[in-house]
């Protein structure tokens, strides 16, 4: 095997390793919800090619207000779905849409776009 082939093999293997580390193992930053005067936990989530922040940590049994700020017109992100809460909402483009829910259980709850391609996670803790 030529030098070039060795370079390609080693480069390929390291790229595959890096991709899998980056998308599956690297930690996503967790954003903690702030609490307003009325005891509501509020988080602003920017919707643009994904959810930013994508991982949100909240406390159990306290109302959570998620403010989705959709900054694009792509049809992919036009809906937000919380399957475990039975919530689906249309997010108008370039508007803030508020969604309120009160998690009664601890755990990890996924939220996705209408086609479940964009993903985020709500971590509910005691």
């Amino acid at each position, binding site marked *: 095997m030529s030098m070039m082939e060795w370079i*390609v093999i080693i480069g390929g293997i390291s790229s595959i390793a890096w991709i899998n580390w980056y998308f599956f193992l690297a930690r996503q930053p967790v954003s903690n919800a702030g609490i307003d005067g009325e005891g509501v936990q509020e988080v602003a989530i920017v919707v643009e090619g994904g959810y930013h922040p994508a991982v949100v940590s909240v406390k159990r049994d306290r109302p959570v207000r998620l403010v989705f700020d959709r900054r694009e017109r792509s049809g*992919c992100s036009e809906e937000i779905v919380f399957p475990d809460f039975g919530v689906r909402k249309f997010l108008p483009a370039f508007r803030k849409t508020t969604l309120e829910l009160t998690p009664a259980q601890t755990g990890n709850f996924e939220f996705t776009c209408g086609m479940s391609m964009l993903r985020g996670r709500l971590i509910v803790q005691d």
Partner: protein
Amino acid sequence: MPTTTPLVLIEKRNRTDTDETGTNAATTREKVTIPVKGMTCAACQARVQRALQAKPGVLDASVNLMLKSAVVTYDPTATSPMVLVEAIRETGYGAELAAQDQTAFDEQEAQDRAQEEEYRELRRKALLSGSFGLVAMALSMPLMGAAEAEIHGPVADPFMRWVMESMTPAIRAVAPWLYTFTPWVLSYTLLALTLLVMGWAGRHFYVRAWSAFRHHSADMNTLIAVGTGAAFLYSVLATVAPEFFLSRGVLPDLYYEAVIMIIALILTGNALEARAKRQTSAALRRLVELQPNTARVVRAGAEVDIPVNEVQGEEIVIVRPGERIPVDGAIISGTSAVDESMVTGESLPVEKQPGDRLIGGTINRTGTFRYRATTLGSDSVLAHIVKLMREAQGSRAPIQRLADQASGIFVPIVLSLAIATFVIWFVTADQAPAMRAFAAAVAVLIIACPCAMGLAVPTAVMVATGKGAEGGILIKGGEALQRAGQINTVVLDKTGTITEGRPTVTDVVPVLGTEWSEKDLVRLVASIEASSEHPLAEAIVRYANEQSLPLATADSFQSVTGRGATGVIDGAALAVGNEALMADYAVDLIATKEEAERLAGEGKTPMYIAINGKLAGLIAVADPIKSTSREAIQKLNRMGLTVVMLTGDHQRTAEAIARQVGIDRVVAGVLPDGKVAEVRRRQQAGEVVAMVGDGINDAPALAQADVGFAIGTGTDIALEASDVTLMRNDLHGVVSAILLARRTMRTMKQNLFWAFVYNVVGIPVAAGILYPAFGILLSPILASAAMAFSSVSVVTNSLRLRHARVA
């Protein structure tokens, strides 16, 4: 008839402007105020204003630096506030539309508009980039021909080679001058064309892919961006520095036409998909459109037409024949036949009299009437249905979990596979390894389609719930739909479900030789029962009223629980009730024994009448069976379902009813708790149980069942209590709902199967697995066509549900 949101309505009324000549120039124009962030100087202001004015459809734009806002007058048929906001943001300043409270109607309308816009934009981009793609293909022909002759052997991309071989003679004949350009000119022209298409039509793929990447996620855009981006960079290097490749034994192939064609084909697929997705919610859109724009109300004694959202509660509304009923209410005067088919699925017009309730959005057919508005806006029946349907269409079916799990890990795996493909080809190919490796890796990235998996289940849920709603069947969501497809036992409550739920007097039989006539008996019994609250008593009193019999006041009335009632009427001591009551008074029943048994055998409830201690006759009351029950139950039986009837009635009456409708499993004498226990018992035996009942009394049993069907009475929709609400008051809805659910399950499985198989087969073929044995290699262009087709085919398959026969 399009509906109008309050905001737009005000503006629309101002639309018919009077121009300088005094004639009405019916231009369509709307005005919107958009707050703009980040402007600090007059130059900023001018920049934003120029950007807005340059947008097609903008009639006037004025940006105010002090107020930090832009007021734009625009043609709503050519542009929209969202496009304007985007234009401002492209200048680098922040802008967003004001948040507003949205009803289900507004939300649906906004979503429809957004989807329509997206479709139009995608179509425009697809068409233009497709045309550029054809130009690029033509430009590539002489280039490939030259490369083949001078630099290396046959072109690596089999599709392009085929195109070249078949098209070259034609191009040489039509445009011989193309072959006079030097390769340098051709390749730089192609480079410019590709940059244009990538930067304009395909821009969103790269922006979204980057945005997703920054947050450790990857989606379809990632695959397209990496695939086309790599092909583009390779081509640019080959154009700018071909020696770099040649000196390393690699051939400087160009992929510009492939990049453009891939973008064009994917955009075409996206446009078709957007159009098909719009159709999946067509049923919901039709429901929204039922609401008329205006209502005719009585104000200060005069009839005035006002926008429907200005109708107040308790206001008097007038409706003429052929008009739509604007809001919910109850008739005060006048009668008519109302077509409620669009809401309840009931095909025959419903007769309406004073006191009857009306549903906003239904059509008045025959008479003129006045009615009092009751529930308005978001509380109306139609708004409830639209809200419920929106939630239902968005819910998930459990079967989707598999697709969710797969699509979550899909893209990084495909990226890894593409790299592996490159490495293997590079190391093993004898001829032009780098080029082959490169083409195969790009094909893998482009052919992979996570979208088909994502669309497989939701589109089927959307179409099915929409179709159900059109037939007056409101299905709560994907999970209910999936479970309804698995039902094998249907438990029917008797009263109000199989029967009308309104007992009526069927027979009055005086004892042979008695001095009392039929009318006497009815009058006397009704006089006693007028003091009772028993449902059977109500039937007798109603019967007497219908015959205009004058009722007397009962003295010493007594209700004997579980037996009947006694009292004194006009000096006669009366006892009306069952055998036990008669035994208390030692009344001899022998004269009517046979008759009573016959009546009970027919499912009627006979009551003995004793006057002054002697049997005078019988009065029988029955709850008539709905005319549709028998046929519907026969269908359920034919569908292989076990049908069970539950009732609080005595065994004998219950069996008689069951026989008449064709049910052979009867559980009689059950109390409301007993219904829950019966459902649970069957579930424990492994049956998937549907419970059909009236939503209020049967709520616990409906909740216990795997699928609860609430049978409505047209307007009282117990939406929360059940999984499926039938707007029409008959059992055919149960048949339709189960058939629809079974059909939907089949569609979901087909979609998922297709989506998985497509990727499982497509990716290895793109990687070149067939090459060693058959010499088959997939062109990246063909891969993009396959990908576009795969998601469109899934949506199209779901749309076939619209035409499913579920009656």
